[in-house]
């Protein structure tokens, strides 16, 4: 069963609460990844020195301006307030039973605020919520804290887990490291309803990060469309292309059950046979012609080719490291096993 919690919704005061920092952290302390520290004194000092608001007679830190929010975040976090990092190590010492707070000794008087960052970026301080150590200009490498200070990993045995004994992993044969073949295209059902019309190849469709955009941002701006081909082309192998009578910069139609993409081909020997690459992400705002195969509706982007499948054993819960945490655990939206058909575009219609 899930756990059930009852909370109060005070809908007419949502705005007041949005712009004021509530008192629960002052009462309960802060922490993350299993750490904990008290903020009462620092909080109260901030209330005196920073903008604040009164609600029902109580003083609250103001969150009205983004800059105020930034200062509350910075002054109450361990990576930017060395005293709080020291406190958090002290708390961890009790759990672990070993000395740790010396890791923050040199940082106790370091406190960073927004204006400091505007003057120059600042290095993050050692904190028990992260596993790397950065004293004296040391480069951050993960798990040096665990290895050097004998602090357990947050797992079942506290050690690094080579063996995964959750009953679901046993059921799926993934309790031991193993090799599983990728999902077979026929059963993966990307091509169950699609038809080959004219000379067509089936390829594995990969959508890596590109050169002329970050995801789709920048891709459509003047400089980037000039530097790239003005669209997100489909990179394919020269022999594969030749078999479809495609030469570089020809238009191609890429389709499967999930949707359709129409773009130009980049024919290159650097791509092996059997796979194709469309760097992500196209935008529907530029360079997307219509698709003859789908009733001359406008074609789509790289996610027109994808459909979500979840890997079931990644749903395991309530068991050591197999316990849910937002963005931390659970099945993922994988997309690399996608298969498509590609053909030369018979006519270009905008």
């Amino acid at each position, binding site marked *: 069963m*899930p*756990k059930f*919690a009852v*909370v109060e*919704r005070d809908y*007419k005061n*949502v705005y007041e609460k*949005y712009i004021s920092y*509530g008192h629960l952290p002052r009462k309960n302390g802060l922490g*993350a990844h*299993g750490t904990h520290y008290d903020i009462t004194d620092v909080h109260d000092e901030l209330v005196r020195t920073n903008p604040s608001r009164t609600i029902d007679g109580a003083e609250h830190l103001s969150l009205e301006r983004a800059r105020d929010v930034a200062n509350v975040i910075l002054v109450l*976090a361990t990576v930017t307030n060395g005293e709080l990092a020291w406190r958090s190590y002290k708390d961890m010492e*009790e759990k672990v039973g070993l000395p740790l707070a010396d890791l923050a000794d040199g940082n106790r008087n370091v406190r960073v605020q927004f204006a400091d960052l505007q003057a120059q970026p*600042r290095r*993050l301080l050692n904190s028990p*919520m992260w596993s790397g150590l950065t004293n004296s*200009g040391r480069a951050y490498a993960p*798990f040096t804290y665990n290895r*050097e200070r004998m602090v*357990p990993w947050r*797992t*079942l045995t506290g*050690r690094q*887990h*080579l*063996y995964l004994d959750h009953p679901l992993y046993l*059921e*799926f044969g993934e309790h*031991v*490291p193993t090799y599983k073949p990728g999902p077979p295209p026929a059963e993966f059902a990307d091509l*169950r309803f699609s038809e080959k019309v004219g000379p067509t190849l089936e390829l594995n469709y990969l959508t*890596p990060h590109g050169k002329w*955009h*970050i995801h789709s941002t920048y891709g459509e*701006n003047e400089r980037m469309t000039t530097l790239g081909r003005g669209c997100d082309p489909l990179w394919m192998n020269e022999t594969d292309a030749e078999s479809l009578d495609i030469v570089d910069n020809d238009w191609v139609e890429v389709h499967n059950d999930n949707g359709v993409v129409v773009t130009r081909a980049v024919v290159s020997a*650097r791509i*092996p046979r059997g796979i194709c690459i469309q760097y992500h992400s196209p*935008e*529907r*705002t530029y360079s997307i012609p219509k698709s003859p195969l789908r009733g001359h*509706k406008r074609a789509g*982007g790289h*996610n027109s080719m994808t*459909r979500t*499948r*979840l*890997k*079931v054993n990644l749903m395991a*819960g*309530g068991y050591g*490291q197999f*316990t849910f*945490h937002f963005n*931390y*655990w*659970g*099945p*993922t*939206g994988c*997309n690399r096993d996608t298969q498509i058909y590609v053909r030369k575009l018979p006519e270009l219609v905008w």
Partner: protein
Amino acid sequence: MTSTNRWIHDAVDPKTRTWEEFYRNRWQFDRVVRSTHGVNCTGSCSWNIHVKDGIVTWEMQALDYPTLDADIPPYEPRGCQRGISFSWYLYSPLRVKYPYMRGALLDLWRKARAEHDDPVAAWRSLVSDPEKRGRWQRARGKGGLRRVDWDTCLELISASCVQTIQDRGPDRIAGFSPIPAMSMISYASGSRFLQLIGGTSLSFYDWYCDLPNASPEIWGEQTDVNESADWFNAKFLAVMGSNLNMTRTPDCHFAAEARHNGTKMVVFSPDFSQVVKYADEWIPLNAGQDGAWWMAVNHVILKEFHHEQQTAAFLDYCRVYSDSPFLVELTAKDGAFEAGQLLRAGRLAGYADEENGEWKFLVCDENDGRPKMPMGTVGHRWGDAKGKWNLLPRDGRDGSDIDASLTFLGDVGATARVRLDDFAEGRSVHRDVPVREIELADGSKVTVATVYDILMAQYAVPRDGLGGDYPADYDDASQSYTPAWAERYTGIDRKTLLRFARQWASTAEHTGGKCTVIIGAGVNHWYHANLMYRAAIHSMIFCGCVGTNGGGMAHYVGQEKLAPMESWSSIALAKDWVPAVRLQNTPSWHYINSDQSRYEKNARDYHTVPDGVTPGGYADCHTIDANVRAVRQGWLPFYPQFQKNSLDVVAEAEAAGATDAAGVSKHVVDELVARKLKFAIEDPDAEEAWPRVWLIWRGNAIMSSAKGHEYFLDHYLGTHTNHISESLAGEAVKEVTWHEMAPQGKLDLIVDLNFRMDTSALYSDIVLPAATWYEKDDLNSTDMHSFIHPLSAAVPPCWESKSDWDIFKAIAKSFSKIAAKHYPQPVNDVIAAPLLHDTPAEIAQAGL
């Protein structure tokens, strides 16, 4: 005059060079302000934004990161060809300058407002009329956005939220915004608003498939990686699925500098990718076969460096820092043994009364062969007795030293023949494993082996005295995971693999573990990525590379590292006011709500599982059924949570006599057990269960981030689509109510905050003009480096745009005003939340 003469003339008479003034003017500025790009590039580079007459004219790399240790080259210069083009956006034709609303909706809204004084009643009149609702839904993505004033937008959004809360429940209001680290205050705006009203925040890192599941599997850690400067400390870099100069542009120089410093670099990539130019060796593995490669590398490492050479540093590391010595219970089944769960300390007489004995585990001591219970396990973490959660090799009971046995090979000579899966060939193999028998508190005996010995069998390392399906030698391709076996999958010659494995392990041996795998989306986005990553990580645990500078698994995909997490999350999730939150794993949410689950059958059709799995069990069902069970077991969240409005559920509980939270919880559990109350996930296509309002900010939820985009258009948006799939799942699903016709257009309203008119904006009902990264104050951190820096308002937000923080502030204000009439008093809401990591719920369920 010849052209040469003219040049000389210009030089001696500068007055004629007035044309140069154009360039001087272009690069003049009145002020310089520091900012960066909040774009999930993971780069996080500090930029100086130059402003002239209130206009951003250009940006330049700030070049002032503090230096690290003197032995490491500086971070500078950071930046990329994309980032330096950002200022173009502020004044570009793509900029969203004003609020926009879909014309079809605006006309209906104005009419409804004329008929209804109360905006909530006006909104209700529209969404309860399928014909009207369909009008603006079908118009999505077909143009027709009209410029409108802020107040109209704010009122409509607020009315839709209040109506949804009243009629359906607050968890039908969902929000998507990715990667807080890239502009954490902007992320916090919408999620703070959502959590204050009881809405659903959607995850991103797992949805993007950037979460490497092997990291939580092995380390209990989302992702924690080397900053890029630490590549310089590595002596061997293996780069796979990561195209450094293309996508890690500001950091790539560390790889080049490491090479100048003598580091070897091998690139694995099926295509001749850009980063290959830095490599000493390019190994063009077949696409998606990285797992096969590392499995065979591990075979070689274990055989030569562990078994034959007994490399002390490697064995000691595994003994202390991995679960290698822990005891696994073997059970007899069909004439062979199966490896099962770890043996629990509480089952032994000596530890029977131990606190959390089911969550403490055992090793055998090398000196006397007796089982002992090391400190530092999850049972110690969540016990009342503090101070024993550490890795010192001591018994948690009596404090005695432990010298844990890695292997039982050769001590008493007992072996058990263990069945293992060979998924590539679709068969079982049987291999001998050294075992011992241990007496339990009830007098019975169990057969146990160490994790290490089971891995030796799984990696098919032949050892004297062990019979069964072990390979004869490296050239035996009949058994996984020999170098000859790997050839079939990777396409790479066995000699290359052997050379790599030996160099990898001997580099680690001679440098104290300075081998790093730089890895990314190219590997992580496969269905079985967890297995590929896990195999690569094993190579580094076997060689003691994890937890040292210059060593370990350096996974870079999303800008997931939000450094000041503690205080930020108290604001972003409104935990300063509300102690419980609705956080949804997005892969499940979209798989189910956008009906992508309907287009496949039993997951076993494509996921290879062992023969003889429980029929109808997790490994033999439709994925949606597994997800329903996972929600019922408290493994995963799912919102909307009930078919009924969660506010009504509390009211009913209170009417039935519940006076406190415990009473309400009991009522809810009773109703669920009696099947009078249903989870929404049990009938996600019923109208009552649909998500209704979708708020999108800082992201491109309907294109770049929309896996199954065409299904979104169909089932969420109710507009034109290019998918041609037909529902296939009818016969396979057992746990959910099946509807022959899939719903189209589940969403009443889609709101997008954006500074670009991108695909998500084109398909939304309301587009609100957001400030760019040069027009707002914010914070930014990354895992590529260890600095935190700001985004700052170099100029105020242009046209009618506002920062995300100010937009949600305005929405909150308008919402509160409208809500005052409908909710003059506070009401109670019940939140169903899954069992959570880093809480005592980690020891909630020892079995299924």
